[in-house]
């Protein structure tokens, strides 16, 4: 008999003994037909077995069917280092709930218990269609767990893994997340662990969950009531979605969530993480020092992302409401948000942006157009039968070109995020008006040059000035304002 054959017989007898009531086991084993050494080993194993309760047990999760308080466990639906989430049935209220519990090995970890309590309180303080509803915080014996709304759907991570997301869907999802964040931030609660794994797409919409690292913003709450769950200098969160200040263990705020939101929006639009999925230290280094690549993100959305992902919290949106507004105004067909009017205009300009030069240029050109209306009327009698016609043509060009310029100037100062889509539509028209205006001015100048040299000089200089403006100055200010790609696009269109 080989040792493994022998072990099988030991196992068989051991199983039979276990199936027998404890007092009868000795009789069963001794009365078996196995050799006495096998019997001895089985008895030793039985003794060890009785003594091995909990021995080598993995952080035993509640098994299906287990009862905890008034909840019956159905199955595990999620698991992470700090918690296990079960689908359970609430026997009191007859409904399915999600139970988030600590793994048993952390039951007695006061810090983890405090964290779970804080998560429950944070989420319970919020009532928003895009935030998972917390029903109760339960403590049964050693166990502590949160009962919350059971959400059927898939995580944003799964959705991202399944393939590209259309832009309109990406915007729908990101707007819901931004609204949830705003609701939380309004109550002084910072999520601090926003990532695709914590966002569930259900039939009833997008739900943000897992306020496990949520922190009551010190500024918004009584300082004494705030429990510090993470020591200063200790990292908590998921590195690829953490803002630089969070990675560095510095103070976190609502703007920390803005950063994670920017990363999420980037990922939603491009299907990839802005800092790649390389080794963790590489990712952290990039979060701290590199700006994300523009990729093929439409300009207005890119402005939102670039602003939200600023390295310094103070360079991000001054409030989550600003972010929500910028997002709402960032794509064509968006419902104009009533909040938009209250957004302080200058704050929406990306820090360091040269948009100011570009918009000033628009204003000056428009004023120049209008300035020339009267001289064109004044000289109409000197240019013979075409004088009135020339005047009317100039007036038409000035009205179209000048007004569009003024409109662009106003938009750049007030709703910069809406600028790019509008530019794409009207830049050709503006360019045509520029060329026509410039030619007419030069033409008038040449016709009246002999008789009225002074007036001719005025027209020629405005004609040349306009030509210079659209050939040289505007491309330069556009490049300063929008970067080279956008200005190339504008140039190509002209």
């Amino acid at each position: 008999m080989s040792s493994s054959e022998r072990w099988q017989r030991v196992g068989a007898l051991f199983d039979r003994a276990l199936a027998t009531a404890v007092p009868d086991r000795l009789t069963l084993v001794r009365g078996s037909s196995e050799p006495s050494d096998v019997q001895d080993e089985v008895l030793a194993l039985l003794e060890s077995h009785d003594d091995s309760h909990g021995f080598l047990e993995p952080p035993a999760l509640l098994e299906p069917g287990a009862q905890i308080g008034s909840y019956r466990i159905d199955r595990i639906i999620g698991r992470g280092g700090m918690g296990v989430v079960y689908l359970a049935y609430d026997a009191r209220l007859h409904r399915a709930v999600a139970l988030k519990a600590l793994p048993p090995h952390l039951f007695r970890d006061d810090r983890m218990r405090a964290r779970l309590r804080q998560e429950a309180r944070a989420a319970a303080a919020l009532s928003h269609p895009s935030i998972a509803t917390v029903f109760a915080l339960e403590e049964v014996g050693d166990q502590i767990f949160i009962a919350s709304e059971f959400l059927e759907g898939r995580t944003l991570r799964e959705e991202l893994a399944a393939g590209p997301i259309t832009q309109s869907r990406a915007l729908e999802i990101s707007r819901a997340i931004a609204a949830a964040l705003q609701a939380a931030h309004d109550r002084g609660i910072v999520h601090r662990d926003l990532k695709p794994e914590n966002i569930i797409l259900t039939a009833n919409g997008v739900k943000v969950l897992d306020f496990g690292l949520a922190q009551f913003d010190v500024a918004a709450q009584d300082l004494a009531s705030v429990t510090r769950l993470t020591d200063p200098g200790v990292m908590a969160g998921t590195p690829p979605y953490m803002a630089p200040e969070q990675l560095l263990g510095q103070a976190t705020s609502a703007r920390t969530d803005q950063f994670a939101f920017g990363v999420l929006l980037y990922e939603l639009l491009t299907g990839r993480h802005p800092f790649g999925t390389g080794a963790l230290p590489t990712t952290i280094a990039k979060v701290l020092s590199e700006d994300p690549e523009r990729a093929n993100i439409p300009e207005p959305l890119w402005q939102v992302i670039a602003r939200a992902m600023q390295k310094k919290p103070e360079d991000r949106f001054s409030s989550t409401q600003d972010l929500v507004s910028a997002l709402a105004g960032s794509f064509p067909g968006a419902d104009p948000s009533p909040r938009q009017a209250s957004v302080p205009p200058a704050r929406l300009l990306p820090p360091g942006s040269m948009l100011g030069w570009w918009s000033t240029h628009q204003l000056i050109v428009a004023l120049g157009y209008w300035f020339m209306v009267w001289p064109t009327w004044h000289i109409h009698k000197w240019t013979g039968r075409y004088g009135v016609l020339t005047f009317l043509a100039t007036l038409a060009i000035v009205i179209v070109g000048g007004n569009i310029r003024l409109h662009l100037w106003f938009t750049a100062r007030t709703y910069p995020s809406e600028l790019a889509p509008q530019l794409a539509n009207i830049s050709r028209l503006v360019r045509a008006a520029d060329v026509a205006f410039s030619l007419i001015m030069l033409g008038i100048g040449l016709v009246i040059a002999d008789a009225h040299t002074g007036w001719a000089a005025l027209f020629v200089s405005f004609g040349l000035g306009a030509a210079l403006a659209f050939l040289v100055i505007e491309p330069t200010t556009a490049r300063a304002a929008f970067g080279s790609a956008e200005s190339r696009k504008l140039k190509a269109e002209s």
Partner: protein
Amino acid sequence: MADPAELMPQVYDELRRLAANYLRQERPGQTLQATALVHEAFLRLSKEKNQPWKNRTHFLAIAALSMRQILVQRARARHAEKRGGEHVERITLDESVLADHTQETTGGVDVLELDAALEKLAALDPQQAKIVELRYFGGLTVEEVAEALDISPATVKRHWTIARAFLKNELSPK
């Protein structure tokens, strides 16, 4: 199922790196969480393309083996450091926290002793040793072990029970 050994380097490196990270940050009273590491490794590696594993369970099976090797290596390294000293520090698996709650009753399990006992068990019944590895080092549930090994949960439970009694017997001070 592909041979876990082929897939090892990627998972193994990731786990070792994570473990090193965690241990550097370790403060008194904190413990290394093997399951947390395994799950974090999964989350990170699952983002990569060309995943050689079929699914999460398959991954956890590979990770469990890697985790065992990492803990054994660490234990050996510490023994080597202490060699020649007054006493040899026992490396207990409460480092892995998996045994954190057993620590009170058993005083912890020595990784190297457990590893040796598992080798003995593998000679008798490789599948039983594998089940212990998956449950203990990988934190898999009975159902997940059953899925990973393509056997019934009842069989897993039966094997687990006797394997545990065997190991308890082996590790008990004689």
